[in-house]
């Protein structure tokens, strides 16, 4: 049952072979058994989940079920869910029971999905290893001495360890794709603006995007069908016609043109990852694709640009945490400024404070043009690189991450080393393009390797088709860590 796809689970539920209550309980049992060591969930709320499952069973009995009705899906703890503790991985929100639902949560609720719990994450989604969480690091289920990636590391571990049928993530600089790669699952960051940011706790608003994480491309298509859609409460939500992201899954790949950016296969890429990704490309050629070398010359600038823009936006977004309307307030303080300063100093962790300070500095008087404006200009150059590249190819492929999962604590003291691990994912966020990662084999130490697939704007259905056809021909996506 834990190996079934979402479609198979939906069929079993509608055929009354299993009830949602039974399915939900069996996942809750697995969480109770494995979460103490993996730490993938911050909050589980069995009574609430089972009540939702009960309601789903009634819907199934009444014949009004949809594709995801009754299926237990975990939610990254960045999404506000009414009545649920919503911490965003931070002490700052350690007491925040959300009074409202994020758009994404409401979409899943309307679809009749069961909220299985809130997954662990880097604090305010700032991190690439899940080690910045106030609730402790998540372990990679393939090797518990290693990180799951981040920031959606709890989600990646939960899906890989079969603690949830599927789950959600968010991706500001790679936070869906990198943990998906490091944990051997599939994850998709849609085009910026496809999924509403309403109720998704903001990190860098011009880059943040929610997306699905699951075991295969077919599951991601079903999840995205529920998650995507216009929402007037998000000012950057795009008004587009509803689409079925599963519509092209079965199309053959004959004639597909794959662009390989030479910058993605250069210095800094581990040889085991390079070999595994090259083998995946060879498989695509067998499926009828052709390969063209492309250039993304500004790739290396994406890291400095990102580490100006994202902290700048974060410093502004996180100014709302002041110990007045919600969240943590220091137990002792003098005047109002002292209350702000102590509440924020105690409520935020080191990485968050570091980024708030970077952001505050680059936005401060006299530095705006040199940093923020310059970064926004180079952002356009980076986006133009992709526009040029897509004249020659249909999708771009390469590694998701330069290495497989690293050891817990390995990069903890050196923020710059941690930032460099996002080299292949960040440019996609800066350009606002859709990107995904699918498992394509194992590197040294038998750790999973992710293949990144980057599409043109609004090409999610094609990317899912490209991923699905590979998953029909290979079985990397169905490998699971030993329990």
């Amino acid at each position, binding site marked *: 049952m834990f190996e079934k796809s979402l479609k198979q689970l939906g069929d079993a539920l509608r055929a009354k072979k299993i009830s949602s209550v039974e399915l939900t309980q069996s996942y809750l049992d697995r969480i109770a058994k494995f979460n103490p060591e993996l730490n993938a969930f911050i909050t589980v709320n069995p009574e609430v989940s089972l009540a939702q499952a009960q309601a789903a069973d009634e819907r199934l009995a009444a014949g009004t079920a949809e594709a995801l009705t009754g299926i237990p899906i975990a939610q990254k703890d960045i999404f506000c869910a009414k009545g649920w503790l919503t911490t965003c991985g931070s002490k700052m929100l350690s007491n925040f029971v959300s009074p409202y639902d994020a758009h994404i949560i409401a979409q899943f609720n309307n679809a009749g999905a069961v909220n299985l719990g809130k997954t662990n994450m880097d604090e305010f989604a700032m991190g690439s290893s899940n080690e910045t969480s106030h609730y402790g690091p998540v372990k990679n289920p393939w090797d518990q001495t290693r990180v799951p990636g981040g920031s959606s590391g709890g989600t990646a571990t939960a899906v890989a360890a079969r603690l949830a049928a599927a789950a959600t993530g968010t991706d500001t600089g790679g936070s869906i794709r990198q943990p998906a790669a490091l944990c051997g699952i599939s994850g998709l960051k849609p085009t910026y603006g496809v999924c509403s940011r309403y109720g998704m706790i903001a990190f860098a608003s*011009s880059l943040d995007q929610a997306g699905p994480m699951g075991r295969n491309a077919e599951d991601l298509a079903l999840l995205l069908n529920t998650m995507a859609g216009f929402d007037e409460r998000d000012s950057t939500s795009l008004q587009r016609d509803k689409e079925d992201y599963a519509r092209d899954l079965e199309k053959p790949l004959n004639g597909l043109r794959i662009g390989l950016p030479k910058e993605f296969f250069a210095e800094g890429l581990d040889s085991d990852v390079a070999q595994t990704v090259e083998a995946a490309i060879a498989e695509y050629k067998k499926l009828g694709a052709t390969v063209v070398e492309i250039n993304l010359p500004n790739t290396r600038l994406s890291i400095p640009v990102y580490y100006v823009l994202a902290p700048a936006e974060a410093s502004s977004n996180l100014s709302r945490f002041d110990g007045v309307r919600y969240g943590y307030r220091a137990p002792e303080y003098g005047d109002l400024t002292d209350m702000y300063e102590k509440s924020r100093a105690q409520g935020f962790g080191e990485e968050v404070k570091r980024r708030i300070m970077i952001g505050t500095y680059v936005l401060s008087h006299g530095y705006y043009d040199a940093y923020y404006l310059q970064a926004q200009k180079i952002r356009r150059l980076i986006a133009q690189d992709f526009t040029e590249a897509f004249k020659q190819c249909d999708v771009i492929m390469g590694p998701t991450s330069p290495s497989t999962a690293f050891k817990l604590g390995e990069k903890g003291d050196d923020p710059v080393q941690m930032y460099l691990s996002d080299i292949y994912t960040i440019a996609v966020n800066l350009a606002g393009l859709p990107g995904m990662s699918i498992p394509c084999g194992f590197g040294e130490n038998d750790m999973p390797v992710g293949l990144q697939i980057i599409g043109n704007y609004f090409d999610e259905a094609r990317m899912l088709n490209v991923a699905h056809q590979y998953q029909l021909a290979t079985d990397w996506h169905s490998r699971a860590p030993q329990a």
Partner: protein
Amino acid sequence: MSLSTDDVKKVASLARLAVTEAEVETAHNQLSGIFDLIAEMQAVDTAGIEPMSHAQDVTQRLREDVVTEENQRKLFQSVAPQVEAGLYLVPKVIE
């Protein structure tokens, strides 16, 4: 670009973050490393390039100026650190 410890203290103050001397020292080292990384950006010639603030060239939507939300003060204040009589309490700012 070199950042001084005074810069770090000033930034922390602007960001309303209380910092100890030891934290200033650590932050100074780490932020300097990060700004060295960022400095790579400065050499790029961006003359005539339009800054990009958003991935899609869309304009801000407007809506009718009507009330769309109901008053949920009680619910929203249930998560506040300190409230009284429907008001948020903070230390006195005017003597």
